[in-house]
């Protein structure tokens, strides 16, 4: 996912985009919705916590809708989230990549040779050492795992570079 390009969940707001926006980018149709993503996510967090406290039974029921360790409700939501991004991908844009080999090379190196490793290293450094007094070891390894997954998942807009 990325903030940049059409393949991402949202675009850079027009006035900020300026020179980064290039001619083969379709204009960003940044709606109210995408632009305030942080706000929506924040509200989602508050709503989730509130509902979790008031209606723990509801969440237990949802957690029980499982098939082969995959929660079906979550799977549906994730598809709702990912599919609109995938359908935006215009394969015609791919042929432009060859024109910018150095830009592509830079993102490839960063995405696959640098970022995953620095993320894992930072996760271990912070959660196993610096934050050790505040986090129990089991949760620490889970937070590290989450950070690693973030680090290895690159932005899908990278070919637009």
């Amino acid at each position, binding site marked *: *996912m*990325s*903030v*940049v*390009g059409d*393949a*991402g969940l949202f675009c850079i707001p027009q006035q900020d985009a300026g*020179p980064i926006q*290039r*001619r083969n980018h379709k204009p960003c*149709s940044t709606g109210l919705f995408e632009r305030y*993503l942080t706000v929506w*996510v*924040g509200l*989602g967090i508050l*709503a*989730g916590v509130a509902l*979790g406290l008031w209606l723990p039974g509801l*969440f237990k029921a949802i957690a029980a809708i499982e098939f082969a*360790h*995959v929660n079906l409700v979550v799977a549906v*939501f*994730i*598809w*709702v*989230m*990912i599919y609109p991004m*995938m359908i935006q991908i215009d*394969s015609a844009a*791919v042929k432009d990549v060859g024109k*910018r080999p*150095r*830009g*592509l090379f*830079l*993102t490839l190196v*960063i995405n*696959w040779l640098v970022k995953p490793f*620095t993320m*894992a290293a*930072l996760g271990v450094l*912070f*959660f196993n050492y610096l934050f050790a007094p*505040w986090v129990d070891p089991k949760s620490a*390894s*889970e*937070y*590290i*795992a*989450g*950070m*690693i*997954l*973030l680090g*290895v*998942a690159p*932005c*899908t*807009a990278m070919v*637009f570079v």
Partner: protein
Amino acid sequence: MAVNDLNMVFAFAPLAAFLLGVTDVSVPWQTLLLSTVSYVILPLAAGVLTRHLWLRAIGPARLARGVAALKPWSVVGLIATVVLLFGFQAGTLLAQPLIIVLIAVPLVLQSDGIFALAYVAALRLKLPHEIAAPACLIGTSNFFELAVAVAISLFGLHSGAALATVFGVMVELPVMLSLVALANRTRHWFPLSLERT
């Protein structure tokens, strides 16, 4: 996209398994592969296929409108997932709210550090700004939807891993917007562009 998704398919699962293995987190390989298939390959194939079919059936103009109309659903899906995740985690979070700050600190460091590194590399490579800026920004940002999806299927809704990936969403937006502003203000550091658009 093709380049990236081939990479995604071949590099994501092994790299994730390797790094998780190094850090002593046990990962069921099958689950990891299954989630890569169901959250990357299947949606991608479905997206490409339906795009192709629609293009033939209704033409490019209406396709573009249809795609634009679908786009907000991404956010709906994300927020719905977030509500669920935090609903499951409500107890944990209220017991130790400090954890939010603890997770955010390394994530912010990571994003800013990677961007700085990429920017310096781009300057050294003498890339024109119009290539360097998006390259660095895209290198910095994460496909956090995938991370959230995989974390949930690997470790479960109640896990700290799922929580950490959701904070990735919270952290990424403000950090990326500040980096975009920075990239726009430092245009004069770069050689003049070869290609005026």
